[in-house]
């Protein structure tokens, strides 16, 4: 994890209810109590399975580990409403496939993990990192980091 994430600033999620901020963070998706399909981002109603007319979805923790479906690396600062740091540092985005949930979820990689550190099929784990800081509050976002159990990239460099 980057050093800003461990500073004294208070941490709040940049989006409410999508992930946990504990030591072993995981995504919070939704699951249909009727047909059991999964949804991300989480929502309270409208099961997306067209064969199911359940109107209630329940929050459910998602697997913390998955494999890389694909990845990209932003070399230029995205436009607003992204709050890019100045000076801008390139960062990677990773789409990770979760086996149990049968879902691919897009997220940033932690600061410093770039495209050269990634490969389709690589094992990843969910962490959190600072998205931006405002008024001494760190707005946190989930990130996909190379799995620590895996030695593929020699740990987070």
């Amino acid at each position, binding site marked *: 994890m980057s050093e800003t994430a461990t500073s004294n600033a208070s941490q709040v999620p940049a989006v409410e209810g999508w992930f946990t901020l504990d030591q072993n963070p995981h995504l919070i998706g939704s699951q249909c109590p009727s*047909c059991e399909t999964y949804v*991300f981002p989480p929502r309270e109603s409208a099961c997306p*399975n067209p064969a199911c007319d359940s109107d209630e979805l329940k929050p459910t923790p998602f697997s913390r580990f998955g494999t890389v479906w*694909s990845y990209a690396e932003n070399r230029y600062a995205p436009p607003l409403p992204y709050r890019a740091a100045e000076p801008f540092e390139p960062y990677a985005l990773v789409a990770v496939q979760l086996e149990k949930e049968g879902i*691919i979820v897009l997220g940033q990689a932690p600061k410093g993990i*770039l495209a050269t550190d990634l490969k389709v099929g690589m094992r990843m784990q969910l962490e959190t990192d600072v998205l931006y800081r405002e008024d001494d509050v760190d707005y946190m976002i989930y990130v996909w980091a190379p799995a620590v159990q895996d030695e593929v990239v020699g740990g987070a460099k």
Partner: protein
Amino acid sequence: MSDRDLVVLGVGMHPWGKWGRDFTEYGMVAARAALKDAGIEWKDVQYVAGADTIRNGYPGFIAGATFAQKMGWTGARVSSSYAACASGAMSLQTARASILAGFCDVAMVIGADTTPKGFFAPVGGGDRKNDPDWLRFHLLGATNPVYFALFARRRMDLYGATAEDFAQVKVKNSLHGLNNPNARFRKESAIEDVLNSPVVSDPLRLLDICATSDGAAAMIVTSRAFAEKHLGSLKGVPRIKAVSTSTPTYPQTILELPDFATDSSAVVMPPARGFKDSICWDAYEEAGVGPEDLSMAEVYDLSTALELDWYEHLGLCAPGEAEGLLRSGATTIGGRIPVNPSGGLSCFGEAIPAQAIAQVCELVWQLRGQAGDRQIENAKLGITANQGLFGHGSSVIVGI
């Protein structure tokens, strides 16, 4: 010809560029060109199917009425359709349904855009935490090129595609569009030009990614009965044989713009045919043809690598073989199945509501033998393919 074929009586464009003028002015030029090409007058048009853009204030949203008013109110019915990059094809389908349902005989399909500089970003300000498109920018900085890059990277890691392969798409399309009077970029590109351009979203470079452009395109489409009366014979006259505006079937398991995640395949099996395949194959099935019957294809090369994906979705080759097909020269004019003879988005840049219409215009010019030095010999049947945000996509088949 099938009784359900629509006749394309006229096509017209305003050249693509960054002209900085009102989008309705471009549309007027395209509309008048299409009318002239069709040999009919504005007052003969009974239906104006406008393709919407998400910019330009209200008038962008009400393209049909805007153009009808600017050409001069005639009481013609109007419609305005939004389907992201497929808006033009959605408008065509709306006009087609109106003609085939017997509500009218002569329709204008029209789209025009004026674009800002730089990355596309969400329209409007404020915190829009219910809007997935706003959130992907805010939480991830996931611009459109990021998604293009995800697809490019998969080709590299799974199929061994190289940056040179992607660059070769640009080289081919630059050559195709070199003398296209409606293209914005008319300049040869060498492999090194692409490789020396800066990386925007790795692995894609500036010259791998299409620009945003101002432009306009219009078509006059009619019932068979009207066209026969107007032209006498329909021999050699391009006809719309299929319009697919397919949507995904749950679960959609490929990560597409602007989503954070795919659907889940944990409970429901994915459909046998993926979304982008279905866009193309629904059109083939409607027209009763297959990839082997094609003379050409105009595909949505938002990036060079995405053009390669389309080869496979269109069934021009098997998955993983697009780079080989490209290298063989088959998709270059003169090859077995030229792709993007117009020069594609690579030479045009994207003018969203006009783009799917422009693709059809190119097929029409090719089928009529009016494509100048980019003419494909003996062109008989062509297909377009494109995809937009939010589960929109389209494929149009035109033949003579």
